[in-house]
């Protein structure tokens, strides 16, 4: 049976395009522009989902993106919201939260045992005996949850954009459109967003039996069309408010992060359900949902209905239903004074009776519980808020439209820090104090009349323009409606309950009363205990009633209850939108392609990609690395060190700057020499180390490891701000590439390429020269990090590949081989160099790594000095020592961070360990107790399996042990 009406003006559906789809195995059709729900409803399908806890059949509640019980899956995606997601051809849909289908859901039995499951029941059972809990937990976990996640769902990364505007208007109803027009007249950039597929808000569906709304909508849209500086974006919701007016706007395509000069919140209001027994039976829906069905989708909500209202709005709904040819069994009005009003009279003229001062006491479901059979109406005492059940009237009907009032869609206003107050005229919360640059208009302000909404929108626009510095006249303020748009307490008690307040979570009136009885009588505690508002609709239809009930239970006015905190997001927002297409910046050395050609396997070092080792066909990784080491020890190796930090310190005070920044001495330092640098923090902890090369009296060239380079440069800049020395700091990390040539034949490799002498006398260890290779300027540094005979070439980045090729060419005949960071680590270990970050941790002080030689406490000051003076007075707690395992050790190999154990207690840990083929031993560094740090001391390392491995403290001059 089709519930589709004849074509009507303004409908969203395109009747020329029929969409075929299936739901729960049955074929259906709808039109393009239908939501899943409207297409099904048009086809007479009313049970669209099952509720979260009791698995009750559910249909339409709001059609406004909070019908959480109508979540479906198409087999691919899950938790699809039927009320707002457009139906698409070929969809094969099923409700998510059923056991055996929406009609025959086996879990529906839970509804009949619901008395066993009172509020918070899960806190009260299942934990004794303890060993049974996992059993119950498993059942509870499976019962909870909505859709099943599809592990094959594709990774969809949406684009994320930034946008900037002067005025952002949120909400495209009468108020928002009016605001956008008024703001747009300034010529500034105005953006209006609205979550619905089409603009207009309630103008598009709340007709009240006349054409006034539709005409106003056309008029406003036409005016806005003349303003090219105003962008109107439908199908886009403002997902949250973040500081400095940042508002992410979500569409199907992605997120646009809008930064606005000022923001107008014309977000309207959510209709709130009255609460009565069985107010969740399919066919019982909000009045606005009925109007949306009628005017957006041209679908009858029911054919013979009852309007249950507590405001004048219900009469507008009744008029629209009648216009659509729907029979009305009655309008039931909670208000006793509604009886003789003009609205009731209007309806009476159309043959519809108004039963005033009454309520729907309960709804009777039809036999298979798929819809409404009848409603029972009783008198309602507005003073005591009780149904007077002595005279019950039963009205046959197949649906109910509920109109009890509204709650402002103030979520973003709350997030922005708006203070709200409860207005007893209109009976809703309205803004009391707005943050700078935020303006509210329309229903969020309690303004409901069409003309006044338009006026309030314009007023807010003028204020928004004033805020961003425009000289425009202020417009008169608009007062909230004096006639209550919401009922103060639209709650009908019923001894048998099932009068739902929160449809997401199946929370009934008695759950609140019982929660309060157990002490959860604060709104936040009540929220947490009952879970009201914690479902996917985040309380859009339940929080206000919860507040009203709690106020009643505690006997205090509503405003004393306050509201729960509003957090982003306004609507749940997909992870793929939020995560979006991310950026993963990475740095390549100028030798990256060269390395790649040589078979490099890259590893991440900070943002850099560095060569870990160079693949050799038929050789395992460990052997490959050992072969690279062997080349350095026996012939020569070459490594790309371009990622090293490089900083130039220029100026007359350059040496003084180093004196203050590092622990060592640089006044004086001979031109052409290099010195060790160690950086501490103010608490005396080792942060970084490196070398300072003196190129001229007023120019130092600093080199350090890769990871800390940016942070160290940053700290230098900061201290320079404080010290104000006569220097210039230049970070040249990216400007220079670095290549190390190391090994006994390194000098031979290079000697033909440079025109300076590389002899020890001319270029001793720790010295630097400026020279050229094939016309390329090169800083040539004699370092001893991986081998005694190492030359580091610093070359302008664009020429690095050229120089590398020259060096490789020169070394080819000598057995020069590239080596990577893996070999480098073993090489530096063989050289006995401890490394900050590997052999130290975030608390290590220089005394613990025996670095006294690097510290000049006699200097006037350096960073960390004062702390070192304190630390020096205290006993050292641990000492880093070099060690070897016994010759020929062939047992379980300990790893870095295995512990040093003495008499069953932790003494320290291994920080570096490796088998050195050069030395023929396993060597490493470890922390031990200072009293056991003497050369020759023995200690034990506990390997992963628990086996204790003997080690001996040795000199860090490992290479001297070479046989």
């Amino acid at each position, binding site marked *: 049976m089709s519930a589709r009406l004849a074509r009507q003006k303004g409908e969203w559906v395109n009747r020329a395009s029929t969409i075929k789809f299936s739901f729960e195995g049955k074929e259906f059709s709808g039109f393009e522009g239908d939501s899943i729900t409207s297409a099904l409803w048009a086809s007479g399908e009313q049970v669209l989902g099952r509720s979260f806890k009791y698995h009750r059949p559910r249909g339409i509640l709001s059609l406004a993106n909070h019908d959480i019980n109508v979540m479906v899956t198409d087999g691919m995606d899950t938790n699809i919201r039927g009320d707002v997601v457009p139906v698409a051809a070929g969809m094969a849909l099923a409700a998510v939260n059923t056991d055996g289908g929406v009609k025959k859901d086996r879990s529906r039995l839970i509804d009949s045992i619901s008395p066993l499951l009172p509020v918070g029941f899960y806190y009260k059972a299942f934990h004794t005996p303890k060993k049974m809990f996992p059993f119950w937990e498993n059942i509870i976990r499976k019962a909870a949850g909505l859709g099943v996640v599809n592990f*094959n769902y594709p990774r969809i990364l949406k684009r994320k954009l930034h946008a900037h505007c002067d005025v952002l208007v949120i909400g495209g109803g009468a108020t928002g459109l009016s605001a956008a027009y008024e703001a747009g007249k300034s010529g500034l950039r105005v953006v209006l967003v609205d979550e619905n597929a089409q603009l207009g808000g309630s103008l598009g569906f709340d007709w009240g039996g006349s054409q006034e709304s539709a005409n106003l909508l056309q008029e406003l849209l036409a005016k806005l069309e003349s303003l090219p500086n105003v962008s109107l974006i439908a199908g886009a919701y403002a997902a949250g408010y973040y500081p400095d007016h940042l508002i992410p706007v979500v569409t199907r395509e992605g997120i646009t992060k809008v930064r606005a000069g000022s923001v107008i919140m014309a977000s309207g209001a959510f209709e709130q359900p009255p609460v009565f027994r069985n107010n969740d039976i399919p066919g019982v829906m909000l009045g606005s949902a009925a109007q949306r069905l009628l005017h957006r989708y041209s679908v009858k909500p029911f054919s013979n209905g009852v309007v249950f209202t507590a405001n004048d709005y219900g009469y507008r709904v009744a008029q629209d239903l009648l216009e659509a040819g729907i029979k009305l069994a009655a309008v039931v009005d909670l208000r006793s004074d509604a009886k003789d009003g003009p609205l009731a009279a209007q309806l009476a003229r159309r043959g519809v009776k108004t039963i005033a001062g009454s309520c729907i006491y309960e709804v009777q479901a039809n036999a298979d519980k798929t819809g409404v059979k009848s409603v029972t109406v009783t008198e309602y005492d507005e003073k005591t808020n009780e149904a007077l059940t002595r005279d019950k009237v039963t009205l046959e009907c197949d649906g109910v439209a509920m109109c009890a009032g509204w709650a402002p869609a103030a979520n973003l206003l709350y997030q922005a820090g708006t203070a709200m107050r409860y207005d007893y005229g209109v009976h809703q919360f309205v803004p009391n104090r707005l943050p700078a640059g935020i303006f509210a208009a329309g229903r969020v302000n309690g303004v409901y009349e069409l003309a006044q909404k338009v006026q309030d929108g314009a007023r807010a626009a003028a204020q928004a323009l004033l805020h961003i510095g425009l000289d425009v006249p202020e417009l008169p303020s608009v007062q909230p409606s004096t006639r209550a748009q919401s009922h103060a307490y639209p709650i009908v008690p019923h001894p048998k309950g099932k009068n739902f307040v929160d449809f997401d979570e199946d929370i009934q009136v*008695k759950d609140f009363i019982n929660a309060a009885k157990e002490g959860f009588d604060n709104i936040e505690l009540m929220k947490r205990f009952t879970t009201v508002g914690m479902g996917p609709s985040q309380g859009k239809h339940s929080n206000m009633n919860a507040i009203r009930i709690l106020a009643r239970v505690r006997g205090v006015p509503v405003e004393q209850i306050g509201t729960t905190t509003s957090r982003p997001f306004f609507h749940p927002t997909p992870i793929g939108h939020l995560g979006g297409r991310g950026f993963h910046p990475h740095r390549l050395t100028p030798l990256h392609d060269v390395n790649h050609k040589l078979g490099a396997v890259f590893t991440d070092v900070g943002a850099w990609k560095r060569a870990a080792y160079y693949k050799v066909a038929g050789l395992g990784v460990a052997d490959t690395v050992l072969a690279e080491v062997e080349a350095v020890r026996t012939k020569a190796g070459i490594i790309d060190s371009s990622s090293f930090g490089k900083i130039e310190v220029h100026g007359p005070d350059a040496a003084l700057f180093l004196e203050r920044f590092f622990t060592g001495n640089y006044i004086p330092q001979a031109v052409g020499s290099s010195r060790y640098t160690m950086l501490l923090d103010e608490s005396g902890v080792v942060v970084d180390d490196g070398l300072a090369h003196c190129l001229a009296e007023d120019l130092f060239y600093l080199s350090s490891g890769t990871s800390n380079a940016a942070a160290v440069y940053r700290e230098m800049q900061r201290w320079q701000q404080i010290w104000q020395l006569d220097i210039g700091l230049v970070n040249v990390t990216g400007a220079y590439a670095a290549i190390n040539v190391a090994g006994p034949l390194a000098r031979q490799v290079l000697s033909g390429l440079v025109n300076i002498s590389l002899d020890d006398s001319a270029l001793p260890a720790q010295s630097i020269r400026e020279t050229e290779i094939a016309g390329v300027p090169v800083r040539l540094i004699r370092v001893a990090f991986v081998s005694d005979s190492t030359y580091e070439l610093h070359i302008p980045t664009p020429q690095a590949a050229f120089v590398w090729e020259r060096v490789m060419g020169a070394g080819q005949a000598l057995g020069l081989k590239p080596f990577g960071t893996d070999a480098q680590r073993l090489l530096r270990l063989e050289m006995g160099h401890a490394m900050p970050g590997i052999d130290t941790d975030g608390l290590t002080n220089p005394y613990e790594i025996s670095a006294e030689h690097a510290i000049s406490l006699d200097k006037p000051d350096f960073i960390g000095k004062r702390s070192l003076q304190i630390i020096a007075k205290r006993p050292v707690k641990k000492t880093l020592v070099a060690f070897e395992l016994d010759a020929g050790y062939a047992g379980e190999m300990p790893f870095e961070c295995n512990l040093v154990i003495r008499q069953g207690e932790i003494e320290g840990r291994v920080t570096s360990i490796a088998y050195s083929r050069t030395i023929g031993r396993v060597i490493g560094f470890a922390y031990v107790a200072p009293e056991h740090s003497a050369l020759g001391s023995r200690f034990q390392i506990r390997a992963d399996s628990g086996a204790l491995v003997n080690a001996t403290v040795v000199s860090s001059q490992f290479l001297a042990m070479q046989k």
Partner: protein
Amino acid sequence: MPLRLLKYALSKDYPGTRFFKAHETPKKSYDVVIIGGGGHGLAAAYYLAKEHGITNVAVLEKGYIGGGNTGRNTTIVRSNYLTPEGVKFYDASVKIYEGLSEELDLNLFYSTRGHFTLAHTESAMRTMRWRAEVNKHVGVESYVVGPEEISKACPQLDMSCSGQAPILGALYHAPGSVARHDGVAWGYARGADRLGVEIFQNTEVLGIDVQGGKVAGVKTSKGYIATTKVLSAVAGFTPRICEMVGLDTPIVIHPLQACVTEPMKPWLDTILVSGSLHVYVSQSSRGELVMGSSLDPYEVHSTRSTLDFVEGLTSHMLDMFPFLSNIKVVRQWAGMADMTPDFAPIMGKTPIEGFYLDAGWGTWGFKATPISGKTMAETIARDHAPDLIHSFRLSRFEDYELTGEKGAASVGH
């Protein structure tokens, strides 16, 4: 269905009684005043009454109980720390937690899921081994596992993390659990209330009366309370409380944010943490993914949310679980974390006689709730801190004897 639930079906009137009395006006004096009605303060009150017979205790809560970090954290309980003193302390907490539902007769949904700290770099692997070795030494079940074992426990995890950060291994910690955070506060509140402790909600501490270096009383929004012992068990507000007694501490407040998705049927059984991707995630018993990330990078004393937090977190979630593109985030929120320089708490006595601190809980407070309550109760009752918390004393900073929990964080940078 357990028989315990039958009483709700059979009785005419709802048989539930108040978890804790609604006290309005405090007495003139108490033996002990506890500032902060979160898990820690309530647990301390409970153990003071239960184990030390000190029942003349007032717990003062500015808002509602459990409304601070107790109700804002991501509910992970674990003991796989780095320092032996840290591991021992948290292990003692885990042990209490395991029997706490029964002790408090409230189902805390204490659910042991196993906990993986994923390592994407060699240096992270080193730290995992360090933690595993210290844990094993202290008798805590943690060990380093390879990719196969991780895949077995969580087959949905993309081990390459979309090629961005391939997983090399993990620290597996068998006792890792989640629990209902609110329930912990409510359970302790009920337990303390039944033993005679008085809990005051909506009661703000305005000042602490110190005379001659000794605590004499507390000024509150509900009047002056005389007492000689005050415990500060707040989070996010510690510096403000310390200011009342003229004490500077190393604590700096940073917001810590979290978010939660729509419910879905259970699929993620374990708790996963990735330091490199700044993600920790578990699936609640309601079916939501509960997710958190690293601290906000600068000092803020508010619980505001930021968009960049959730953008970064979800981006990394997709690296780990590419199929979550269309799963929706429902809500994000924040707590205020007391950060210390060494990532360890500050517990015990202070230079002010009778002023005790239970603070510096950073991102690790929920898991320590029972043991902090127990040890602080002992500290107050005996005016002497037990050995278990000696390493966390305030004076360690003056002595340059920091605890090395942060040491691990900066290893291999």
